[in-house]
């Protein structure tokens, strides 16, 4: 066992770091580090910069643009991106739709969609959840009826992240309501969001931000060639995808950066005439989170290492999701605690001269990150999965 980077790995880290420094625009980095809302253009412009360099989808097969990096290199890359304040590569295309197409798609589907996902030509979003179907996804009701060479889709999706930016949405739909098991009779469809009959409505979350939406489908015609895998066999696809989705939710490198920022804040905030960071009570809280994160970093590498052979992620990603999201939340809480009474001001009523936006964003961030233990399969559901699949209970 050797937990240090090799000289090659260190050289790789330096290369990535240097490249990011040369290519990440300051304005974009500042937006990320100040928790400002990123526009579709912000997200796609960075996506395209990475694509040009050939680094937007490291884990794809080489023929489609993957980099053939080792697990360690991938982690180093991610860590450098987060530390530098790069915008995220939105997961729905690169990390979710693409692995599905690579595994289940027809050649025509791969040819048509993968290069466009790679290059950031299409913005993809995820249409799984419905008002009545959250944790119990298999109960979904959005209906797709085959009529000639089309499906006609009617129903509603909810919580569609960045649906207002979406060019395409991958959806789970019910193609057969008369099966014995509800999991049978679901299909995986790719839908162009410009198709008539689709309405996107915003949902405002408690941080006052708009990131999720309701998406309504009213007799939307979808060409049958946009069915992925077989009709009624979409659950297999869905489950395959969920593994990849959850793998991305640990966000360890992101948490490392955020923890470092809280340390920085607590070093500047004063308590009884001394930096808050020197206050043993606060320091202990911070250290506990830091230690947990150190352990998770290695757990993550151990698990990723096991996936080297190309095996799809299994129940182990549930553990990464649970711990990773709990840590993300704990960090936002520490940040608010560090700001103390100053965390209260949210928005100026008139004129924002001298307004401290960074401090003002800490309370909304704390609120926003409550989502992390709810989405991508709530942490309760992840525990159910581990109990069943890993422990056999």
């Amino acid at each position, binding site marked *: 066992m050797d937990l240090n980077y090799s000289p090659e790995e260190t050289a790789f880290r330096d290369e990535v770091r240097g490249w990011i420094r040369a290519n990440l625009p300051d304005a974009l980095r500042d937006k990320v580090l100040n928790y400002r809302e990123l526009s579709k253009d912000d997200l796609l412009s960075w996506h395209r910069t990475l694509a040009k360099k050939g680094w937007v989808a490291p884990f794809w097969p080489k023929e489609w643009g993957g980099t053939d990096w080792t697990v360690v290199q991938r982690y180093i890359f991610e860590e450098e991106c987060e530390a530098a304040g790069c915008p995220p590569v939105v997961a729905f295309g690169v990390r979710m739709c693409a692995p599905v197409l690579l595994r289940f798609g027809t050649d025509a589907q791969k040819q048509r969609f993968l290069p466009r996902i790679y290059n950031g030509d299409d913005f993809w979003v995820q249409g799984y*959840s419905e008002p*009545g*179907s*959250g*944790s*119990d996804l298999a*109960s979904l009701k959005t209906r797709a009826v085959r009529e000639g060479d089309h499906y006609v889709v009617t129903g509603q999706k*909810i*919580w569609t992240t960045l649906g207002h930016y979406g060019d395409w949405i991958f959806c789970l739909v019910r193609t057969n309501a008369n099966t014995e098991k509800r999991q049978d009779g679901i299909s995986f469809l790719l839908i162009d969001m410009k198709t008539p009959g689709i309405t996107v409505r915003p*949902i*405002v*979350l*408690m*941080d*006052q931000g708009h990131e*999720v939406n309701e998406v309504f489908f009213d007799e939307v015609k979808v060409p049958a060639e946009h069915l992925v895998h077989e009709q009624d066999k979409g659950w297999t696809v869905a489950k395959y995808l969920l593994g990849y989705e959850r793998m991305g939710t640990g966000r360890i490198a992101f948490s490392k950066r955020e923890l470092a920022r809280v340390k920085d804040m607590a070093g500047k*905030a*004063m*308590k*009884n*005439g001394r930096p*808050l960071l020197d*206050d043993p*009570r*606060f320091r202990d*809280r911070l250290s506990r989170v830091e230690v947990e994160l150190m352990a998770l970093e290695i757990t993550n590498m151990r698990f990723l290492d096991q996936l080297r052979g190309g095996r799809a992620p299994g129940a182990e990603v549930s553990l990464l999701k649970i711990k990773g999201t709990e840590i993300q939340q704990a960090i936002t*809480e520490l940040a*608010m*605690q560090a700001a*103390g*009474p*100053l*965390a*209260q*001001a*949210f*928005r*100026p*009523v*008139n*004129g924002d*001269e*001298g*307004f401290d936006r960074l401090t*003002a964003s800490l*309370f*909304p961030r*704390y*609120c926003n990150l*409550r*989502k992390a*233990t*709810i*989405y991508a399969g*709530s*942490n*309760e559901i992840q*525990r*159910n999965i581990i109990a069943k699949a890993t422990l056999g209970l």
Partner: protein
Amino acid sequence: MDFEYSDEQRLLSETLRKFLNTGYSFDARDKIMKTAAGYSDDVWAALAEMGILGVPFAAEHGGFGGTTVDMMVVMEALGEALVVEPYLATVGLGGQLVARGGSEAQHTRILPALIAGKLKMAFAQTERGSRYDLRQVSLRAKKAGDGWALDGEKCTVLHGGAADLLVVSARTSGGDSDERGISLVLVERTAPGVKVSEYRTLDNQRVADITFTNVQVGRDALIGAEGAGHALIEEVVDYATALVSAEAVGAIKYAHDATLDYLKTRRQFGVPIGTFQALQHRMVDILISYEQAKSIACLACVKVDTAAAAERRRVVSAAKIKIADACRHVSQEAVQLHGGMGMTEELKISHTFRRLTTIAQLFGDADHHLERFAQS
């Protein structure tokens, strides 16, 4: 021991709740918090009319002469309804400083108007680097002619923008963190040299940063003796801490009820989610947090009226530790058990989450009070 509310207290609670249930629905509140002022004059007038603004003040000024347990009844109701009006700032802070430390003349000038709903107050104490330390006061008041001139800055003053009259803690002698040398000064919000920058908070209340530039006040603006303000500040902040503890109990009660209701009505996997044992235990823990929070709030409300300073400090800090933990625990769990719906602006539970988050840190977070508890 007697844990029951008296008939009078029950009547007070019923009157207030009846008003809030009809006149302060979640939708009505939504409209109020989106107005320019961020609170409703009509609601304020109604609170005056019902005598709610006068609960803790002496009968001779038009008050009800109530105890802190009477106030607990009020605060629980306000907490449950998430009332955004500047009640705590006016009645719990500004008005208390005047009532407890002010002269006869100040009483007559201020309290009847306050009780009648014609005068709102705020307490300008926190400064940029002071955190929760009540001794950290660097805003200066210097002798000027017959009175004082104030220079300095206060920040996140609760409802400072709505207040007609501010009580400002100011240093008249000593170093920036000395207990001695802090004086309390009455300042009109519209006095020359007072600049107010108002902010919305995420829990839909208001705070203000206020700068004072050569603000002139007369000799009669001083509350209590020069340089001896700290003890009164501590006493009143302890009182207000007991009040927000009671407010938290009300908000926690709502979170408990709403979450329990959701567990019984939200169905997944063909059954109400409340049938899952994993969630049943979580709900039980919410109930336990509620009961414990209520008990410690009762203790604090009784003791702020009856205990000597040392015991008062110890009990109030104990309460705030427990309340901060309960706020955090219950609010987080309530949102989690509501799933995605819990995250939305549309549901009251997310507003309750935010209020409880604010209360957890108001007048000192758990760490601050753990330290104070250990020292007292």
